[in-house]
């Protein structure tokens, strides 16, 4: 009954929106939701995200989804947002290719009366006023949790007063990369004040690139106790470099637990990560969009939880599918 009432209210709101903003929605039955993703082919996380999103949209008979992919290209993403505005969708979900450059396109959607939901990685603050809600992981918290995982392990090993850490960050300019790095950089000195981060270089979310970066770190520094990578894909690249160089006893901590990272944890080569499910991520984004269209109260920062995972507790988690 309550649901019906909600639908009716939503329908009325929608009719009002139709009159004012020209957003086409036939009495609340079908919502047309457009999504422009960052770069689907680049990694399995994004691929799984897309599949889960499509599955969730198909499972919901009230939703008609337009699924687009920007292929990592800002210009293409802006064009896609404009296309979605032309198609008069009821809401646009955007996974920004670049936190700054997409703001004008988001503003355009806002001015056209179409609510915008940002997913996975947020846009820059200057664009917040044009966004209805952000649905995704809290990357700053993820970075600080990784710092805690690493510090706890160092303390357990008794090297919390001398350990040296190198960091391999994600793609420069990418909000997720910047937030995870700042979360890690800020939290580590709080929990382990005597641990030093000797150098940070980007691995561009790319396993092979990270392997090369780690090789250079290994040549440059005789003493590396820990490696923090912006995701497990890069972390495994760094791990490969350390194994090839015969350097043992390094503590590897990542984020976004990938299957390869999970397996490396099972083998005891990789210490820990942050468990983040692309299925949760996609479903949360779709639900947020539906809630926004239905006029429900949605927090501006709509985070889903991403817990710590280490060799000690990994049996509580299923192996990631990506």
């Amino acid at each position, binding site marked *: 009954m309550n649901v019906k009432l909600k639908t009716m209210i939503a329908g009325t709101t929608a009719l009002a929106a139709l009159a004012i903003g020209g957003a086409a929605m036939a009495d609340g039955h079908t919502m047309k939701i457009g999504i422009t993703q960052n770069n689907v082919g680049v990694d399995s996380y994004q691929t799984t995200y897309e599949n889960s999103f499509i599955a969730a949209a198909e499972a919901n008979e009230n939703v008609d989804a337009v699924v687009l992919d920007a292929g990592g290209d800002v210009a293409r993403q802006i064009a896609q947002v404009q296309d979605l505005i032309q198609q008069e969708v009821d809401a646009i979900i955007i996974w920004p290719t670049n936190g700054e450059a997409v703001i004008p396109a988001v503003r355009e959607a806002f001015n056209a009366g179409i609510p915008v939901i940002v997913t996975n990685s947020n846009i820059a603050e200057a664009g917040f006023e044009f966004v209805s809600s952000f649905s995704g992981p809290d990357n700053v918290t993820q970075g600080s949790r990784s710092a805690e995982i690493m510090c706890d392990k160092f303390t357990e090993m008794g090297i919390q007063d001398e350990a040296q850490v190198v960091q391999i960050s994600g793609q420069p300019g990418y909000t997720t990369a910047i937030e995870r790095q700042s979360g890690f950089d800020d939290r580590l000195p709080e929990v382990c004040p005597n641990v030093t981060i000797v150098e940070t270089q980007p691995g561009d979310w790319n396993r*092979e690139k990270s392997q090369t970066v780690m090789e250079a770190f290994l040549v440059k520094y005789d003493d590396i106790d820990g490696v923090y990578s912006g995701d497990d*894909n890069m972390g495994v690249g760094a791990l490969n470099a350390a194994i090839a160089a015969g350097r043992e006893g390094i503590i590897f901590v990542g984020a976004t637990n990938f299957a390869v990272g999970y397996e490396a944890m099972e083998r005891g080569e990789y210490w820990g990560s942050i468990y983040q499910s692309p299925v949760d991520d996609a479903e949360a984004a779709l639900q947020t969009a539906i809630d926004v269209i239905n006029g429900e109260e949605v927090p501006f920062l709509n985070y889903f939880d991403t817990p710590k995972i280490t060799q000690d507790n990994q049996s509580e988690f299923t192996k990631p599918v990506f």
Partner: protein
Amino acid sequence: MSDLAATNDGGRRKSIMNLLARNGILIAFVVFMIGFTLANDRFISLDNVMGVVRSSAILGVIALGVTFVVISGNLDLSVGSMMSFSTIVVLDLHDKIGPAFAIPVMFAMTMALGALIGFLVGYLKLNSLIVTLGMLSAIHGLTLTYSGGKNMDIADKEGTWFAVFGQGHVLGIPVPVIIFGVLAAILAVLLARTAFGRRVYAVGGNGVAATFSGIPRARVVFLSYVISSFCVAMAGLLQASRSMGSQNTVGQGLELDVLAAVILGGASLLGGSGTIFKTVIGVLILGFIQNGLLLVGLQFYVQYVVTWVIIILAVWLDVAAKRGRLWSPIA
């Protein structure tokens, strides 16, 4: 002109000058090596040098093949996405039909793509820039379709001999370095010492003249692309074996690094000049620059800029050595 000078009685000094002029890029190479060594003494350590040569091997193997294409007067921008393709295919087939079959099948599939490009550019005489730019995108789509966008990983990384190509050592030398070296030697002989090699130069130097001299221009261009795709398949094998898993975009952007290496080596984009040896030097310069900048610890954003400043400096040094002065009042 400099050849003539060397035979004059000015003798020894001139012939040294001549040697330098022919190898300006070698001088540049030595200068950079000394510079980076001064900045960080670990740069020249055996471990690091071996590491750089090993990680350059993948780029290098591709550059060997592209050298043929460039000398024949064409471009190949498809090599990056073609390598992604071969890497993904061999990783996928490894678990399905075993490495012994996966490797030849992957080579056949990759070389079929090379043959297609060779047919379009050689026999249909389509512009190579357009064809290979189109193939860059088309092959990327093919790879994504093949993999369904997923990362490919070998399930059982311990129980296979597949790792030998990317991670093995023979007499302390990494296998990728050996493959790079052997392939460079074979292709150097093919290019410099055989009739086919001379035809590649002839076609690139003056295609019309080559045709009227009875050289089967289309077939030479076709074979250059097949050689190039063979090298790409080899690089894909090294890449796959090195990391035992890969993203779909592993080769993205590689085509420009490859071209940079080939041009650094002094090959003309207009065709007709270049050698395998100089391409190898170009590859090493590129590899050592990237490694050197990391060791010096420059901020990453600055590295993009510095890399290209160094490359342009190297090309300038090369040109200056050839004409015997730093700049030229006429063109």
